[in-house]
């Protein structure tokens, strides 16, 4: 593997063939667990582990139909609805609060901006675990354990510096003439933010929304700490409860449930992969 192809390759056939073979091999390794899960979810539990076959000879669907019975007398749809509530709530919060902050950093010259910006970048590098215990104590004293407030509040207060940063980079690249013209016409910042900058930032907003949705959907530690009644559990916690209950015995049900839990994330990925990858690519570079 070298960078030579960057400059010289004329796509000679053997080289191109080797390239595709190499890429396909990596793809096979990457996708193997995914295909294994799909195949395994149609196997009897005792065959999931202990058989090298990817797909069963006699596929069964009982792993899926059994999910209809729910987990510990709670319907699967409850977990999905809980996760959906949290994810959508997070998306709304992030879009509003982070775009306001990003606008201030990108478009308003106010005293102390550099200091606040440095602090924000600092929070980007701060390990979350330092805040875990004091935040838990705080929310416990406010009697908010077992509510969704601790999981959502930060999203409405722009604590996710990554998205502020992403939106800010995008806003700084917008043509300056637009908001300068609007200013000369007497528009205030709120008007410019809402009617000019936000509509132009759609790609950054979509990227942030999808990342936020997926992160909230995947989040495990937050719900693990703050939620303790099973009917408030998210899909992640429901899954963990299912595993603890069934132990190693029910591999079939376990991976069928895992797969179902991943479906929304995979659907988002397939629909919006361009936004996600471009957003990721830009994060390492100054726009």
């Amino acid at each position: 593997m070298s960078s030579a192809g960057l400059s010289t390759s004329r796509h000679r056939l053997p080289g191109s063939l080797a390239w595709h073979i190499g890429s396909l091999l990596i793809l096979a390794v990457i996708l193997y667990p995914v295909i294994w899960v799909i195949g395994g979810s149609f196997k009897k539990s005792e065959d999931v582990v202990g058989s090298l076959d990817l797909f069963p000879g006699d596929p069964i669907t009982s792993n899926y139909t059994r999910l209809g019975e729910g987990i510990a007398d709670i319907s699967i749809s409850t977990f999905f609805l809980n996760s959906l509530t949290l994810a959508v709530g997070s998306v709304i919060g992030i879009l509003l609060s982070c775009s306001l902050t990003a606008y201030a950093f990108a478009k308003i010259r106010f005293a102390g901006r550099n200091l606040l910006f440095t602090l924000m970048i600092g929070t980007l590098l701060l390990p979350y675990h330092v805040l875990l215990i004091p935040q838990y104590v705080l929310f416990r004293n406010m009697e908010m354990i077992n509510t969704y407030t601790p999981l959502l509040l930060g999203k409405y207060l722009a604590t996710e510096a990554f998205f502020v940063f992403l939106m800010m980079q995008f806003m700084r690249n917008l043509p300056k003439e637009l908001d300068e013209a609007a200013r000369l016409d007497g528009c205030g910042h709120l008007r410019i933010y809402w009617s000019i900058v936000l509509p132009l930032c759609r790609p950054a907003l979509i990227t942030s929304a999808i990342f936020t949705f997926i992160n909230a959907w995947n989040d495990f530690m937050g719900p693990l700490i703050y939620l303790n009644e099973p009917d408030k559990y998210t899909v992640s916690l429901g899954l963990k409860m299912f595993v603890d209950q069934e132990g190693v015995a029910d591999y079939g049900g376990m991976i069928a449930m895992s797969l179902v839990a991943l479906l929304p994330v995979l659907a988002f990925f397939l629909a919006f992969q361009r936004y996600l990858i471009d957003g990721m690519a830009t994060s390492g570079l100054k726009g």
Partner: protein
Amino acid sequence: MGTTVTHAPAMEGLSQDSEPRHGPVKPPRPAALKRRRRRENLAGYLFMSPWIAGFLLLTAGPMVASLYFAFTDYNLFDAPKWIGLDNFSEMFGDPRWRHSVQVTLWYVAVGTPLKLLAALGVALLLAQSRRGQAFYRAAFYAPSLIGASVSVAIVWKAIFSDDAIVDRTQKLFGVDVGGWTGDPDMIIYSLVALTVWQFGAPMVIFLAGLKQVPRELYEAAEVDGAGKLRRFWNITLPMISPVLFFNVLLETIHSFQIFSSAYIVGGGAGGNACGPADGSMVYTCYLYVQGFENSRMGLASAMAWMLLVAVALVTAVLFWSQKRWVHYEEGA
């Protein structure tokens, strides 16, 4: 979005004053200027108010509280009791704590370089062709999105358990070490495998960086007779060093904080949260056990601050080292 990027990376020059964005077209009279400046300040702080509230309530305040708890005995039910450095001396004297440090350092030291090597290697491969690049890029990126989920951790546990697919495959090659997740020494490697599997995110960043390297440089080097390896070493690597720095920094910090996958891949076996014989007891796992299972909030806060100090040290060393190996384009 990705089309307008330049070489200068995010971490360079955190100050924003390099180019004035809202300089007035004509300098107005002093009184008007003053009024305008006051209005800008007011607008700035109004727009910033959610962030400022969040920073004080959920970041700065908790950090101070955490620092205080670190010097107290606190079980959530009784008021925190000041005990000086006792938490720290207990921590350093605790073999389980030292074990968790070791497991974490091992995980970071093995997993992060492997993941970044995979990311860079595959990025170099993908950069060679435009046909099919978008497809492979998307497919390789997908694990990064789902890798943090409980689902994938469960699947991982199944794949690496006794008699499962990995065990059987290695037996085909005559290696009989059993399933990795049941083995205290091997379980950490199943977590390393899980993080390497998610090489897609840094790979996408590398690819974006590779796209920025001017082709003329390679052509000039080729005229000068530089071989492939030489071109990689003298052109590609220096040119992408800013994104390399960014990836190393973020992946390292991220690795120190691994929790969910260790907790789930290691969990379940007889109520043990951290793997067989604490095999997957990474630092945050032990922090969780001490804080939320043993209700030792003071001790857990002390542990969290040690983690913060460690991460800050690594960050500082990386930033210090970048003068030696990271090349920023002038005037980008």
